[in-house]
């Protein structure tokens, strides 16, 4: 463990899942036989937003279960729920992916590699965030240290099972100077992913969960001059402190710029999938529609609850739409919609699927779980999440991820909507 903390996030519970795996989906086993549990019995996590407050609502009549029973020749059980999902053109063993981490030091070292190795082994897609190459280089020349980007790609590719998962590389405006996508596209170490159709590039629009600002990191004062040619560098700390604030640009976008950037990606990287990452902005639904129409294989939306990077307090607490509101505004239809924002347990994940998402991203959860145990923390955490999801989806009388839909969720905003008319 590195001393990593995640205030405001159910860190304790995620660490327990990273240690104990599926067992952590239940109350402590020693309480069995002596403790009576009902709603809020364990106060496992305080409801934070409309998604937490919504409830999954299993039906009495379950025609999908009937179909599954006929198929299996026996009553289906939760283990019969198939969690494999197509995520942005990749086949994934689960409806999860590792979301891009903000451009913070936390993910750039061994932790980023531990996440990559385990995500690869799990067969779930992994996004690698922006601003790595301009700040730390790529590391192809013999005298350079291999960069975090290169190491994460290599770790992932060596662990991934055939036919599952994929690596998604972001490129910010500053990354474009370093031609990160061209670099990866022509790099021999990325060739196995490219040849197996498991490489995507992600266009980052705006800034993750914090719309309107670019990615921010603290860098040593001695690097300020060098980085100031590419970044806005603000000297806001006491002179005795060895840190300055490095700010990326959120980029300038119009509908036409977004459309053409996606087309250019499809033109230039025909063997790659094209992903687009949107912030929780008020026009997120419009931007998503433009992206899908221009041929994006996937659109990811970060709710304002999400985030792993360094950000001003004002943005953490006051800027951006909640994930529930983003889901309310978005209409994915048959397109791949990926969402993230404080996903740490199965119910929140299944609710997001019911509200229209194709899959959910793990950001802080992936980092904290890997921090708890670099070898198996993320794997254990995913095992727990998967069990919960199988139990929940099975309870809805469904056995495939794509079958989960709006009828499976009750929200305060839509109270009564899903009822079938009494005589209907």
């Amino acid at each position, binding site marked *: 463990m590195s001393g990593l903390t995640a205030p405001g996030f159910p860190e304790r519970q995620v660490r327990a899942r990273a240690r104990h795996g599926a067992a952590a989906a239940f109350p402590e086993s020693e309480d069995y036989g002596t403790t009576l549990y009902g709603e809020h019995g364990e106060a496992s996590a305080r409801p934070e937003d409309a998604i937490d407050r919504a409830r999954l609502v299993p039906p009495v009549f379950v025609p999908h279960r009937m179909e599954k029973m006929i198929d299996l020749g026996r009553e289906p059980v939760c283990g019969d729920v198939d969690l494999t999902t197509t995520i942005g053109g990749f086949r994934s063993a689960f409806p999860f992916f590792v979301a891009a981490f903000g451009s913070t030091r936390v993910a750039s070292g061994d932790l980023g590699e531990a996440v990559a190795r385990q995500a690869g082994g799990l067969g779930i897609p992994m996004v690698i965030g922006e601003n790595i190459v301009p700040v730390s280089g790529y590391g192809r020349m013999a005298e350079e240290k291999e960069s975090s980007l290169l190491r994460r790609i290599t770790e992932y590719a060596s662990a991934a099972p055939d036919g599952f998962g994929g690596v998604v590389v972001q*490129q910010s*405006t*500053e990354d*474009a*100077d370093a*031609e990160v*996508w*061209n*670099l990866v*596209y*022509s790099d*021999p170490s990325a*060739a196995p992913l*490219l040849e197996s159709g498991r490489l995507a590039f992600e*266009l980052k629009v705006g800034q993750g969960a914090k719309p309107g600002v670019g990615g921010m990191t603290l860098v040593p004062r001695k690097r300020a001059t060098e980085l100031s040619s590419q970044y806005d560098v603000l000297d806001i700390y006491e002179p005795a402190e060895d840190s300055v604030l490095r700010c990326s*640009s959120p*980029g*300038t*976008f*119009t509908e*036409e*710029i977004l*459309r*053409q*950037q*996606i*087309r*250019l990606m*499809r*033109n*230039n*990287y*025909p*063997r790659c999938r094209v992903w687009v990452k949107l912030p929780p902005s008020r026009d997120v639904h419009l931007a998503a529609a433009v992206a899908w129409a*221009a*041929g994006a294989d996937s659109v990811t939306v970060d709710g304002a609850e999400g985030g792993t990077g360094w950000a001003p307090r004002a943005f953490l607490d006051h800027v951006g739409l909640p994930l529930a509101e983003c889901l309310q505004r978005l209409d994915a239809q048959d397109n791949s919609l990926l969402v993230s924002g404080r996903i740490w347990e199965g119910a929140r994940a299944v609710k997001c699927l019911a509200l229209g998402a194709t899959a959910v991203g793990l950001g802080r959860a992936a980092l904290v779980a890997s921090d708890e145990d670099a070898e198996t923390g993320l794997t254990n955490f995913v095992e727990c999440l998967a069990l919960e999801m199988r139990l929940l989806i099975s309870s809805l009388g469904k056995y495939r991820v794509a079958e989960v839909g709006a009828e499976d969720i009750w929200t305060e905003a839509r109270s009564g909507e899903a009822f079938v008319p009494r005589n209907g």
Partner: protein
Amino acid sequence: MSAENTGAALPTPRAHLTSERTRAALLVQNRFLAGARDFLTGEGFTELLPPTIGPVTDPGARGAKQVDIDYYGHRYKLMTSGILYKQASLLSFPKIFHVAPNVRLEPLETAVTHRHLTEFHQLDVEIAGGSREEAMRVAEELTRHCVEHVLSTAQRELEILGRDVDGLKRVLDAPYGRMKHAQAVAQLAGGGYGQDENTEIEWEGEEIISKAAEHPFFITDYPKGSRGFYDKESAEEPGVLRNFDLIFPGGFGEMMSGSERESDYRNLMMRIRETGENPAKYEWYLTLAREGIPSSAGFGLGVERFTRFLGGLDAVWQATAYPKLPGELRP
């Protein structure tokens, strides 16, 4: 994948340089360039010597990476195309050409396309105040002149190479055809090839339509998003570029790309953002554009590719003394 066209099958430098076929191919190239210089000079063009490095170059296309060099502590680039410098040069001369070296770290997959080198040359032409039609006229007359010149001055070399001379003469039979990008997409779709309507014609698709053709022809009106920011967008048809490629028959494919150029500062800023780049990187060029650069049209003809066509060579590496294929370490 044809083994002879992969790097593994490249001859040693000695074997390549002493081969009679290499010598013949390079002589055909020499004649073609001599003919081109005669023609362009006769048309009032001035040959300028091209730059080889700069703070920016043509933005990467189709996944090709630029080569960065440390220039007194600043990141400079080897030229992938001198296009921006061509536009700037028109401040000095109204009609110019370069014979310019370019380096592009092409994706590894292009090692087997028969027509991609990481180091190659372009015959670059630019005409101040020119229209697309004028650039296409010069392109057609230039290439026809070069074919005639090679036919009349390099017969022995063509014999050594076993070139089907009738295939060369057919270039002179008729005016070059015209086909819009949308028509090329439709033709490919009609033949069962799934070509995206919003992107470049893929290499495989281009080879298909090149093989089906009897004579050279231009593909025009590529969609925005498939080309660099400097190709001008049509005022009448938004989303369509005032550009062209010249395709030669026999499966040899594209020989040149050209266009009317964007020269308006505001449009250039927006187009650069459409390619995902920070305009600050292009400071010198945008400063010139803000102060005013001539409108223009022009093209770049691939020297080794055109030599490959003239000599009827299997692969473009045979048209250079020092072939460099993507991913292959060569002198």
